[in-house]
């Protein structure tokens, strides 16, 4: 084949240009992180199952103090994997709905799950008549484990999950709306943040290939949030109640949380999943 020197030079030039500089993420590069995410979710759910059992055992034994103590550390496992858990609308409602979701409020027959138990344990300070609710929560969590095991994770839901978690923080945690009876919102807050960070970490190589500065910015904001949350950690590895969080810290959380929610919402596009 005959080639002009200029064509040769051009070809050489093209060959020397790093292709990755303008190559989009190859879909098959997502297989590793998506499957590692499923493994992570499965492990979190195993933990949720074990902890929920301990929590509901305490409720059924009528051990109010232990039940109160186990409430928040148990929920964390649900909060960290919410993007997947909330794909099952019926279970999300029976495990994690708030009183506001029910027309008849606290008395609604279908108000079940963590927040219904939270109401009795922290507002009424009682374990009376909670046996059925405790058993149902156990059963629902087991059901969730089975369903997640059988679910092929949609890649766009996995990647989109990081932003979904931060939106959840922005909408329900900063306000202290989620755990209104126990004020243990900071546990959930940290759970949401850890779950989002896990997603970023799993896809880090692919995102960095597209936009290194983006990853640095996201890391910085995660670090800011973690630093503020760390101020309220207690000696036993838990958190202070949300009413102890100072006004300036609440305000300081809003900025990075909103920026993270906004930045992470571009992840799907960056990884070619829109």
């Amino acid at each position, binding site marked *: 084949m005959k080639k002009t020197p200029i064509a040769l030079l051009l070809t050489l030039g093209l060959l020397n240009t790093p292709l990755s500089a303008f190559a989009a993420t190859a879909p*098959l590069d997502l297989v*590793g992180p998506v*499957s590692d995410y499923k493994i992570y979710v499965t492990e979190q759910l195993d933990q949720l199952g074990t902890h929920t059992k301990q929590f509901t055992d305490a409720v059924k034994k009528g051990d109010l103090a232990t039940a109160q103590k186990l409430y928040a550390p148990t929920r964390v496992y649900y909060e960290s994997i919410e993007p997947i858990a909330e*794909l099952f609308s019926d*279970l999300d409602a029976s495990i994690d709905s708030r009183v506001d979701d029910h027309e008849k409020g606290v008395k609604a027959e279908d108000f079940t799950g963590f927040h219904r138990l939270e109401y009795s344990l922290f507002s009424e300070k009682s374990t009376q008549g909670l046996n059925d609710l405790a058993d149902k929560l156990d059963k629902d969590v087991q059901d969730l484990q089975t369903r997640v095991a059988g679910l092929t994770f949609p890649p766009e839901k996995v990647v989109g999950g990081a932003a979904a978690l931060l939106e959840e923080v922005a909408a*329900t945690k900063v306000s202290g709306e989620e755990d209104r009876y126990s004020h243990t919102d900071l546990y959930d807050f940290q759970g949401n943040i850890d779950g989002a960070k896990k997603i970023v970490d799993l896809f880090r190589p692919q995102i960095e290939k597209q936009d290194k500065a983006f990853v640095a910015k996201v890391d910085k904001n995660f670090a800011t949030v973690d630093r503020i949350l760390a101020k309220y950690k207690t000696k036993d590895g838990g958190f202070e109640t949300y009413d102890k969080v100072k006004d300036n810290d609440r305000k300081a959380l809003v900025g990075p949380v909103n920026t993270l929610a906004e930045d992470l919402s571009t992840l799907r596009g960056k990884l070619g999943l829109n």
Partner: protein
Amino acid sequence: MSKPNNSQASPPRALRWAVAGSVVVMIAAGGLFYYASKMAAAKRQHNHDEVVVNIHPGSCEPNELSVPAGHASFRIVNRSERAVEWEILDGVLVIEERENIAPGLSQVINANLQPGDYAITCGLLSNPRGVLHVTPTAASDAAAKAKPSMVAFVGPLSEFRVYLATQSSALIRAVTTLNQAINSGDLAQAQAAYLPARTAYQHLAPAAQRLAELDNSINARADYFEKREQDPAFVGFHRIEYALFQQRNLDGLSPVAERLLGDVNTLKQQLLAKSLPPEQLVEILVRNLNTLADVRAASGEEERYSHGDLNGFAANLETAHKVVELLRPLLTKSAADLLPKIDSALGDFDNTLNGFKVKDGYASYDTVSGEQRKQIADKAKALADALDAIDPALGLSGL
């Protein structure tokens, strides 16, 4: 006195002008704002074809919607007193959702919808659900007939990688148990631990066989070695099987068991590290089933000392089931005519193997006649052939 009078009179006059001026500006600004917002609304309607859904305290309005397949935008207006969420559901699964829409505010949900009927939730959990009809379009019909894109394989391949991880862990646990029995010198216990470890291995076999050298040290038969069973290089499962079921002697077996445990740990690492191209997902099954049909079924050579062959065939078949389940959504969309053939080939092979079930597992292979072995081989071959049609149908090979 006149000066103060003058100075008193002039500010009100200035003020009157100022007030009049600002009123004019306000009206003008109001008009501009009204105009701009009208334009914006018109533009929004024009650009996005937003479908507006109003959420009232007890219901949605409209409660029944119809949109063409493809991209759709819904503006959800919360006209109730509480924060609400709006979801599009396929059965119990959430397709798209928007949570925490504050009272009096609205949010937009963008969705990419396949044709079909979906349920929509409307605020409170007790509120009646609405219906969303998504009607087919020329584009959605064309997309339905098109071959799946690479992105469509990310889900099934990820799920298969999770399967490899789970089964590898099961294999490591089972080989650890086998190891402990051998180390404690308990022949009966070691024999009992052999088959479960083989089940776990045979689940992985189609993928493990890609790793030629490692797989040889785990699974090679005595025939591959110059001095056969007496060859010092003969290690792995079958060396252990030979000691447990033929020699019935555990002497000197511990190092072999130790090595196998190391190898299955390496196997897990390598299976997870090596990416599997989409066309290989089915190809590895076909290859595995062909060795079953061509060699293993007739000869019973694989488990020649323990005669646990049927146990392994069943495990191979379970992995085939797994892969077909993972590809089912893609096949339903792009190659629906293949599915009945594949399902009946899977079912036939299931039935044949089930015919050999005994109380705690499968019949010993030395009791299976030549005629029956041929039947097993035929079913495996039929399944391999049915599966072989998948890659071309999904656009994964040139043929």
